[in-house]
């Protein structure tokens, strides 16, 4: 982890860190990267990755429309809405 990577990660995650926070991150990474060595020691060559911890079973739903919520309620807590839309500063496409 270096300053340049950190700058990129800030951008990627839409965050702006203070100098103190940057120091935190750098030392945090140092600790974690040290720990990752202990993972490297584990032989996982013939082990499948495990995303879901329990026996896989497919859960699907029928293709049925259910209207549960009103727009008015969904937008009640919005910082800015207009004519039923959420609003953001002008996006150039």
């Amino acid at each position: 982890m270096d300053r340049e990577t950190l700058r990129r990660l800030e951008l990627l995650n839409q965050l702006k860190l203070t100098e103190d926070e940057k120091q935190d991150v750098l030392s945090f990474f140092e600790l974690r990267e040290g720990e990752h060595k202990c993972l490297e020691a584990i032989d996982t060559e013939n082990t499948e990755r495990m995303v879901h911890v329990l026996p896989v079973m497919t859960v699907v739903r029928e293709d049925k429309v259910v209207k549960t919520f009103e727009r008015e309620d969904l937008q009640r807590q919005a910082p800015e809405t207009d004519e039923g839309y959420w609003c953001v500063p002008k996006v150039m496409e």
Partner: protein
Amino acid sequence: MNYETVIGLEVHVELATNSKIFCSCSAHSFGTDPNEHVCPACCGMPGMLPVVNKRVVDFGMKAGMMLNCDINRVTTFDKKSYYYPDLPAAYQTTQWFAPVAVNGLVEIETSKGKKGVRIKQIHMEEDAGKLVHDIREDTTHVDFNRTSVPLIEIVSQPDLSSAEEVEAYLERLKTLLRYAKVAECEMAHGTMRCDVNLSVRPEGSDKLGVRAEMKNMNSIEAIKRAIEYETARHIDAIENGTEVLRQETRRWDDIKGKSYAMRTKETAGDYRYFPDPNVMPVVIDDEWFDSVKDSLPEFPEVKREKYISLGLSEYDATRLADSIAIAECFEDAFKVCNNAKEAANWVISDVTRVLNAKGMTYEQLTLSGKALGELINLVLDSKVSRANAKKILDALFEDESLDPVKYAEENDLVMSNDTGLVDKVIAEVIASDPKAVADFKGGKEKAIMALFGKCMKQLKGNVDPQTLRTMLIEAINKL
């Protein structure tokens, strides 16, 4: 030096399901008020969990089978992260590691003959919302109706080499997906969208050139123009050094007929894919697989051969088989009237005429083939004149539930078997226009048309024209 263009396509197709892919909101966003088909899940609020819509998997599999793909019997969903206002959760759930279908092949035909285009994969994913830029000058308005509407993305190998091939490929995809009834595939509606990856290299070279990507193309004509423009731009750059080619995303301006490099963020493309812990792998067992396989339609080629064996010309057979809506209308009509040529003629000329007049496409056809068959029977049995049958066809377009037989009776469109009535009308018409009668007798054959027309009008068209003509001539000759 000669060059070849190497093109691969990523085609997004909106699936024609009722509800969205992971929540139960309506998937029909076209022409709806903004944010009416939205719930906490598809506007990015915390707490709701995705539950996969079974029909999306059905359709994904079906599309895969139509394009000769292998189906992944365990298919999984992954998260793709990026910030954009049309993506409310800041991630899109898609398939990165185990897409529903892989390794397909689509055969296309162009002026150069037949060719196979390999399909790398088909994956299922959720659509993004819509941004509206023209309501206020300083603001972009965000509509999540389309968010989480199911899509498949069909990724081809770079096997295409011209605008003509691209067009043939897209048309073939449309035909096959419409046959399977999984999607509308209407570029004008945004239910089919296309990213074009293009590079140019010296003919015979096995090294790929620098790739340009053009995103979200929304008409075949624009795609063709863009391909021609890009090909020329690349060749110019290679031969004359007019510019240094970069791997980049470009925007096609169809009005100016030019492409422009898009400004991209430093972090663009860093999507941090990882398996979605909230969506269990979808395991497609034999029963599920077979039920989808059994629901596949006949391929267009099979239908075409079948139609030819019914005695239709190759041209007519091809026209009918080109569109599933037309093919089915024909088949249903044929089932009822058992006269392939009549049914084909009605579909190809009369049905098409009405569609054209209404500005509708074949896919929008809702006419019942069964009703058309019944109408054809009325004509074949000399119960309704052809002219009146066309009127009934117009009425059938207005109201699909109409029964042609009943409609004919109720609207006085049934041919008269009452020769007494015809004789009476002929006598009246002859008496009313002695000049025309005299002209005809004097050798002016055309004079009969006026008399014929008057009779037809009085009989409201409910007489066989040939019979009327014969009876009319006989009556005059008897004078």
